[in-house]
């Protein structure tokens, strides 16, 4: 492997280049599939599927009446586990895996201790809950919100910065 190829595969690309590539990919995705990039919608639908196994009917909940564009096609004929949202998430995993393998940096990571497990669970629940209130995460609400000229992307960004600042303060005190 020559030195320059190694550098491209191993070293981080500049932010501006990553931003341009992500922006272009999002435009292409929107043109081809009719949805912009989003992560948590897929997980939400998996959650619906799991609850359906237990006899619940989450699609009848008021929440889903607020986003008919997204969820009506899934409710009508789609599969909660196999749909374009799930494909997007699988794509992210495969893309990351390829990048990691090309850089020879793949490693299965362990859970360090019970504290890490507990904090990861609490953090995951808070992020999942928050992403439903905000109708998206960093990607769906922020990254895809701003280019759609919607105010919510900017509001999300401002409060994500605020939340990160508070989070870092708590982290520094507890480390």
């Amino acid at each position, binding site marked *: 492997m020559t030195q320059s190829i190694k550098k491209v595969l*191993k070293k*981080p690309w500049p932010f501006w280049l990553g931003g341009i590539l992500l922006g272009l990919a999002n435009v292409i995705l929107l043109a081809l599939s009719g949805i912009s990039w989003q992560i948590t919608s897929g997980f939400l639908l998996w959650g619906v599927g799991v609850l359906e196994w237990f006899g619940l009917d989450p699609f009848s909940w008021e929440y889903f009446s607020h986003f008919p564009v997204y969820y009506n096609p899934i409710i009508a004929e789609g599969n909660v586990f196999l749909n374009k949202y799930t494909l997007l998430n699988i794509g992210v995993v495969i893309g990351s895996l390829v990048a*990691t393998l090309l*850089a*020879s*940096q*793949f*490693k299965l*990571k*362990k*859970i*360090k201790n019970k504290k*890490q497990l507990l904090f990861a669970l609490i953090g995951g629940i808070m992020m999942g809950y928050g992403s439903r209130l905000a109708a998206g995460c960093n990607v769906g609400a922020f990254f895809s919100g701003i280019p759609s000229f919607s105010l919510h992307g900017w509001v999300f960004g401002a409060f994500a910065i605020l939340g990160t600042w508070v989070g*870092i303060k708590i*982290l*520094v005190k507890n*480390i």
Partner: protein
Amino acid sequence: MSVIELDCLSELCPIPLLRAMKELKKMKPEDVLLLHSDHSCVPIDVEKWAKGKNYPVEVVELDGGEWDIYIQKPKKSREGI
């Protein structure tokens, strides 16, 4: 001079850097901190921070997605960390 090891495997940014900063504060001048990490952003982040502080720093990429990062606390601490 002694070497202090910090096991930051399975830890994500910014936790390893915060732990390194805390550890370096306690160390004596010329002591070396050896930080183990398996998160690709950590060596970049820690190296950038250490260079900004003018601390001698060396990153070694091991096989299989692990890194060893060596940081030496300078002789005279010009400023608090």
